[in-house]
């Protein structure tokens, strides 16, 4: 891959993840310049998607730009890390028009700010006043319980966990009982036909 050699010059290391998938991790400052160089020099003209992964424990978002060349025979993922609190990314919509809608979605779902983005209006949620939903510290179950109550259980409703426990005990008990019966039967047979065993032994 001549791309690997080119990246050597920029002291970046190209990792091959799958047979058509390569990834490059860089730090945030050089992101925009690298994207432009990918577009102009290396011929990766198609921006396929901008993905964001929320690593709550380490306190940063991993942003992945997936680029493809004109032949579309492999995908290069450019990954970078930005800190979670008031994260902001350079907007790419002047270069790739489709980046506008991808950035609008990421703004609404993760709260990532894109200075200079024309339409940071709501993408899928209407009148949403809570924190951006796809961040990991937003607990969707607790939000759902507060917003609209579930249908009250049917009066003959059963709780799944107890039922499982009961079934396990019932199976264990049944196995136990079966063993005891087997022993009892065996013991019974042993009594009423001691002669057979003796016959077998002779």
């Amino acid at each position: 891959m001549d791309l690997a050699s080119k990246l050597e010059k920029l002291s970046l290391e190209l990792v091959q993840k799958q047979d058509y998938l390569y990834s490059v991790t860089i730090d945030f400052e050089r992101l925009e310049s690298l994207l432009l160089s990918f577009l102009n020099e290396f011929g990766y003209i198609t921006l396929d998607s901008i993905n964001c992964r929320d690593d709550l424990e380490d306190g940063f978002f991993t942003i992945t730009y997936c680029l493809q060349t004109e032949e579309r025979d492999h995908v290069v993922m450019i990954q970078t890390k930005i800190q979670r609190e008031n994260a902001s990314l350079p907007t790419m919509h002047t270069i790739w028009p489709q980046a506008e809608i991808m950035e609008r979605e990421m703004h609404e779902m993760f709260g990532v700010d894109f200075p200079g983005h024309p339409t940071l209006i709501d993408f899928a949620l209407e009148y949403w006043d809570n924190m951006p939903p796809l961040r990991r510290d937003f607990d969707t179950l607790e939000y759902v319980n507060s917003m609209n109550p579930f249908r009250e259980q049917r009066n003959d409703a059963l709780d799944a966990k107890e039922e499982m426990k009961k079934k396990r005990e019932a199976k264990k008990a049944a196995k136990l009982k079966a063993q005891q019966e087997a022993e009892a039967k065996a013991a019974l047979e042993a009594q009423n036909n001691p002669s057979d065993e003796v016959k077998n032994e002779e």
Partner: protein
Amino acid sequence: MESGFYGSSLDGNLKCKFEESGLANTHEIMEKAVRWFRSRSIFVVAYGTGCGAIEMPPTFTSRYDAERMGVVGVATPRQADLIILSGYLAYKTLRRVIRTYEQMQKPRYIMTLGSCPINGGMYWDSYNTIKKLDDYLPIDVSVTGCMPRPEAVIDGFVLLQERIRNGEKAGWEKYDENFEFYKENQKRVLGGHIDPSYETDWYNLKSGGKA
């Protein structure tokens, strides 16, 4: 010209009992006949709200053909009797569905597909879908299946037709009777943003009248 040219303006008690409807205010046989005609021709509004909308084309086209029952799709809520809520309802969709439902003319019915409108179904823990449609809109017929087969949907139509023919109490009467209950729930879950959000007394809420 403020008061209506024909027909009285809304009197307080709008309990739309069956007797005050159209031709049916003569007597018993006439009422039964009108119920029979009503059951024989149902207009469904063209609104695929959820993922069950994929089963609507097969139901209304040549293989399963709901038109045999007299069930036809129409474009606008004004002309429709039945709205099919096919699957889960996001908050944004719920606003439009309430608007469409209230623009339909009585008697109007709601048919829901799958278990998502009943108890949240597969998206029980999603932050953007409602969990129990009964609080917001009265449901007449629920069809089981995720997504129900065209035969199940047509079975739903047949059940609805039977109910209309027997003259059972329909959803729209429930909606009129406890209108406040429904409006409160809607206001709570939609964060007060019920269309129309501007100041006109759209549904005569202030004057206690009904839709």
